């Protein structure tokens, strides 16, 4: 009896303090892990929020681009694609807000550089704010450029996105700019103001020379200007064109069965050329009198020519390799053996070759034709191929303006510009803005919207 009554007293003596000690020890051990975990989790939440906010900001940019690429605008209503209210004094349209997964976004746009009523530049500042615990926000600045109706060649009549390489006595007598490097070797000659990309340079080796004037008399300094070469928007030219004029109204000179287009020869027989492929062979020529043509490929060989009819202004659009069913590395323009494209009465701006190209499949242009017969210009046309690599060689002399992804000149090729080519405007189709600048802005919000970007 007595033993039984004493036992609880004995147990009280060490159970309570021991339990307290254990609890304190356990809490201490757990709290270290909890604190460390909380710190890590806090960083994780902030990281997730930051990334989510960036995605939301980009959602705003995508929405703005989509609206401006689908809804036409003009100088009197620059905000029409996104809001009915006009812009402020600095040209910025009122903020447009929206929501997406994980938060909200707000963006403002400014359309500038109008030509023939079409904007050439679109600036977008978009802020994304996440709805998670971090409440993180990110602001981005995006600039888009459109080629439609723009005078692309006003600053430089030779423009290349990735770089210019000249070799073997090649000469450019024109202003020339690239966003990449400019390399001259083996007696190559650049006469005219040159520009290279930010962080890039001009390299002169093997007696090559650079002069700042087209007369090759003065020394020059190299600019670091930004070259914008937006993709070609061909509009509805694939279905609405003058291809039907071939060869009924646009007549062949020479043996008609040596000219082929769209699977048919000039004499009406079946040819081996593919869809929208114009193939001229051996001493033939075609005179184009329409205004818009849609080709997939143009091959000219052995003393062939394309003439532009008197008074005509011709734009030849070359469709994308995907639409034409071509594989990577296709040559969409090949001129060989004394081939020439020239206007019978007009200048270079009367004939333009516009290449849609592809962001994923490489396309090439080969201009080599041995036509250096002493005259100033055997070729008179404008080439705008911002996604294509251009190769010029074999003693050719070209007059006009050329833009591409890259240019390699070799074997005594010569390139001259003309005032008319410098004033050439890309045909005015619906604007298609292509992003050429992205900046992660520093501050959350600012006035004007692009401040801090």
């Amino acid at each position, binding site marked *: 009896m007595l033993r039984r009554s004493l036992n609880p007293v004995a147990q009280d*003596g060490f159970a309570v303090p021991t339990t307290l000690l254990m609890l304190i020890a356990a809490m201490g051990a757990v709290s270290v892990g909890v604190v460390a975990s909380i710190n890590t989790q806090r*960083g994780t939440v902030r990281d997730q929020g930051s990334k989510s906010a960036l995605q939301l900001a980009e959602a705003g940019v995508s929405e703005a681009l989509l609206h401006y690429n689908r809804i036409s605008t003009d100088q009197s209503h620059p905000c029409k694609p996104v809001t009915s209210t006009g812009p402020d004094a600095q040209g910025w349209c009122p903020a447009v807000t929206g929501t997406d997964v994980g938060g909200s976004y707000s963006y403002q746009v400014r359309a500038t550089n109008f030509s023939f009523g079409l904007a050439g530049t679109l600036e977008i500042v978009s802020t994304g704010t996440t709805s998670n615990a971090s409440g993180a926000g990110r602001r981005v600045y995006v600039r888009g450029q459109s080629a439609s109706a723009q005078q692309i060649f006003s600053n430089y009549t030779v423009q290349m996105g990735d770089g210019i390489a000249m070799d073997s006595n090649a000469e450019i007598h024109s202003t020339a700019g690239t966003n990449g490097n400019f390399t001259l070797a083996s007696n190559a000659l650049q006469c005219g103001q040159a520009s290279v990309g*930010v962080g890039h340079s001009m390299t002169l080796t093997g007696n090559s020379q650079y002069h700042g004037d087209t007369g090759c008399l003065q020394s020059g300094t190299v600019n670091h200007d930004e070259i914008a070469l937006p993709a070609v928007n061909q509009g509805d030219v694939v279905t609405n064109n003058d291809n039907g004029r071939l060869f009924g109204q646009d007549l062949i000179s020479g043996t008609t069965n040596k000219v082929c287009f769209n699977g048919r020869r000039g004499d009406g027989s079946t040819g081996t050329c593919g869809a929208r492929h114009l193939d001229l062979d051996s001493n033939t020529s075609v005179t184009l009198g329409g205004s818009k043509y849609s080709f997939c490929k143009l091959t000219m060989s052995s003393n062939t020519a394309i003439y532009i009819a008197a008074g005509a202004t011709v734009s030849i659009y070359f469709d994308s390799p995907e639409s034409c069913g071509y594989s990577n590395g296709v040559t969409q323009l090949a001129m060989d053996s004394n081939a020439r494209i020239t206007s019978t009465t007009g200048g270079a701006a009367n004939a333009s070759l516009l290449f849609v190209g592809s962001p994923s499949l490489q396309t090439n242009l080969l201009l080599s034709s041995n036509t250096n017969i002493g005259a100033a210009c055997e070729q008179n046309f404008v080439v705008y191929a911002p996604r294509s690599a251009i190769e010029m060689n074999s003693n050719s002399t070209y007059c006009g303006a050329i833009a591409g992804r890259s240019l390699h000149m070799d074997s005594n090729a010569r390139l001259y510009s003309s005032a008319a080519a410098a004033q050439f405007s890309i045909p005015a189709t619906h604007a298609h803005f292509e992003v050429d600048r992205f900046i992660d802005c520093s501050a959350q919000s600012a006035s004007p919207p692009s401040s801090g970007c």
Partner: protein
Amino acid sequence: MNAPALRDEHGFTLPELLIALVLSLMVVGTGVMVFSAAVHTQPEQQRRGEGIQQARTATERLTQEVRQGLSVPTATSNQLSIVTYVNSASCGGAASNSAIPCRVTYTCTAGSCTRVEALPNGLSPGPARTVVTGLTSSAVFSYLPSSANPKFVNMTFSFSAGNGDDSITVQDGATLRNAGTS
């Protein structure tokens, strides 16, 4: 006379006390060991947390600079040189509210990475500033589709771990959004 009272004064027996003492020592010892281990681990936990945070800050800055990059003049596993927009009044100078193109070079050697800002052509470099320490590998950068033509830059920061713990690896990457313009 008072036999029951005398019997009440009986204490614990010696074996009971010894057993209670041994049990108490075991319990208290276990508690002390746990507490001691926690105190001992705390600095390591804090170091790991700081390492993760340091790596996060570095990757956030790097991904931002890569994302708005124009070109990559140098691309190796331990060095990334990128022409990108930087919020500076001049390359290597004081911070500014507007972005200008500068060449930023990250070099990772002997457990740490430094950052140098220079003119876009690489001239006039500013001072090297350490951005990450405690790395176990200097091979931080990898490139897609290739180092000769980098369009996507991947970065991996690996930190050592003590006491047999797993090492810390913080990984991120970004596409050069302005690569087509330069």
